[in-house]
């Protein structure tokens, strides 16, 4: 399957039809695995990395889940193609920096991606729309068992699966949910929530993981620890916390609607106005404004069929996605102009936001 067919179609998880998808954008579970007898990629020589790759890649390609897959060596991907994959969360930023000796295998539906020779020999992840951590784990667990039959994974009787970084040892699992929390941000409660989440041993990160900024009111919640707890228990604990955050976000939305309906409509309306008429738009600004439109759809300020075009804009306005839509190399200001015109075109037929019909002020339940 050629790379452009992967790049030109959005992944299944972007459709946003999973459970709780108005707040949880996507759920991801990744497992880190290494082979016995080879140094970890960071310490391996080029020929050792190539040997590992030659050993792992055919095993991954022969998985039933990878029957219709795209499999590509890192050196055969352009910088732009890698960046598109990063924006879709199909590869990590670290993996995008790799060349000879690394590869990625993705299934057609873009629900499964397996990086070879990232920080560990294998980083495999399943990604699903909405809150589906258990399903994502089930999928990746099956893939792991199938690969474990063919490959000799480094496993320690006491410490479990061995990883390059000791923070991943044990299960080698990182489960995370991408959450859209505009009302918690607007009502200035989000820092409290983050602190509480940190306190129970979970991590909160920005859009692209460790060390990235929270843009578009998007936050990634994930487990911090990997040793001393079963995979299912880690996921159950994470799920519980995420459900709590959903509850808080919903409460914050309701209370904003009751106490500050004008402020709320004003935020959404201004975002709509700027997006609808701007001629230059940086990607961070676009994300932050689109977040209010998304909130507007959730609250019924826009017709329901506006959801998909808005969700699509979140990803299509990312720098690499914009660049790939045109053949000429864009400078930053040209990119901002193209982004603005793409958004204007997409919003042209969208009606201006209005408070929900027949409902008056929302009632407390």
């Amino acid at each position: 399957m050629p790379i452009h067919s992967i790049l030109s179609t959005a992944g299944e998880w972007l459709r946003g039809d999973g459970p709780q998808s108005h707040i949880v954008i996507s759920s991801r579970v990744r497992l880190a695995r290494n082979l016995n007898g080879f140094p970890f990629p960071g310490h391996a020589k080029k020929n050792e990395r190539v040997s590992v790759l030659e050993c792992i890649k055919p095993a991954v390609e022969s998985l039933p889940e990878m029957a219709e897959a795209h499999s590509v060596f890192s050196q055969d991907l352009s910088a732009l193609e890698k960046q598109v994959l990063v924006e879709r969360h199909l590869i990590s930023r670290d993996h995008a920096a790799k060349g000879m000796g690394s590869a990625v295998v993705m299934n057609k539906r873009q629900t499964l991606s397996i990086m070879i020779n990232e920080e560990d020999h294998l980083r495999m992840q399943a990604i699903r729309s909405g809150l589906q951590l258990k399903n994502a784990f089930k999928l990746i667990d099956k893939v792991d068992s199938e690969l474990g039959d063919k490959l000799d994974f480094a496993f320690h009787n006491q410490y479990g699966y061995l990883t390059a970084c000791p923070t991943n040892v044990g299960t080698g699992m990182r489960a995370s949910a991408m959450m859209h929390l505009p009302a918690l941000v607007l009502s200035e409660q989000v820092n409290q929530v983050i602190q509480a989440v940190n306190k129970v041993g979970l991590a909160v990160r920005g859009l692209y993981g460790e060390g990235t900024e929270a843009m578009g009111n998007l936050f990634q919640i994930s487990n911090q620890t990997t040793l001393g707890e079963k995979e299912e228990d880690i996921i159950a604990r994470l799920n519980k916390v995420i459900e709590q955050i959903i509850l808080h976000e919903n409460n914050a939305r309701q209370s904003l609607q009751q106490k500050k309906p004008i402020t709320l409509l004003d935020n959404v309306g201004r975002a709509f106005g700027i997006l609808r008429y701007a001629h230059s738009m940086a990607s961070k600004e676009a994300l932050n404004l689109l977040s209010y439109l998304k909130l507007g759809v959730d609250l019924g300020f826009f017709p329901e069929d506006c959801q998909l075009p808005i969700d699509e804009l979140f990803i299509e306005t990312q720098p690499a996605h914009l660049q790939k839509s045109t053949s000429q190399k864009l400078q930053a200001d040209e990119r901002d102009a193209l982004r603005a015109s793409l958004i204007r075109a997409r919003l042209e037929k969208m009606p201006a936001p209005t408070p929900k019909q027949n409902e008056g002020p929302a009632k407390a339940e």
Partner: protein
Amino acid sequence: MNCDVCKKKSASVFLTQIVDGKMQKVNLCEGCSKEKGVTDPTGFALADLLLGLGASQEMEKGSTTSRCPSCGFSQADFKKTGRFGCAACYDAFAEGLESMLKGMHKGLEHKGKVPPRLLKAKLRDEELKKLQRDLRKAVADEKYEVAAELRDRLKHLEAEGQTAI
């Protein structure tokens, strides 16, 4: 007082963090504090810094072997990268490892998935041990018929293990 990172210049930035009730202190010179991003509070990962430093200090204390026999990775390499060189490093640097992992994780023992093929071996191992125990008991009790049967099952299981490997 010298900087904990370069050990050369005198320290001018002093950091204290309490992790699990244990106080950890890091002293840095101006150059190293900038390099580690201490002056920029948003970009500064105190945990990472402490992790690297603290971990290797713990390891220096206990360990006698300074290099992994399998991949040649040294403690200094770990200190620099915060990563191990290969799977065998976990045994080569075992002594300081526990206290480091204790600070990072919920426990020190893996409770999750075991690779299916190791699981079979583990179950067979347990079965073998049980049969051996029963056999000894049968012999001691002079139940020779039972013992003969147990011996046959043991032989069978051992042969199975050989072909599986």
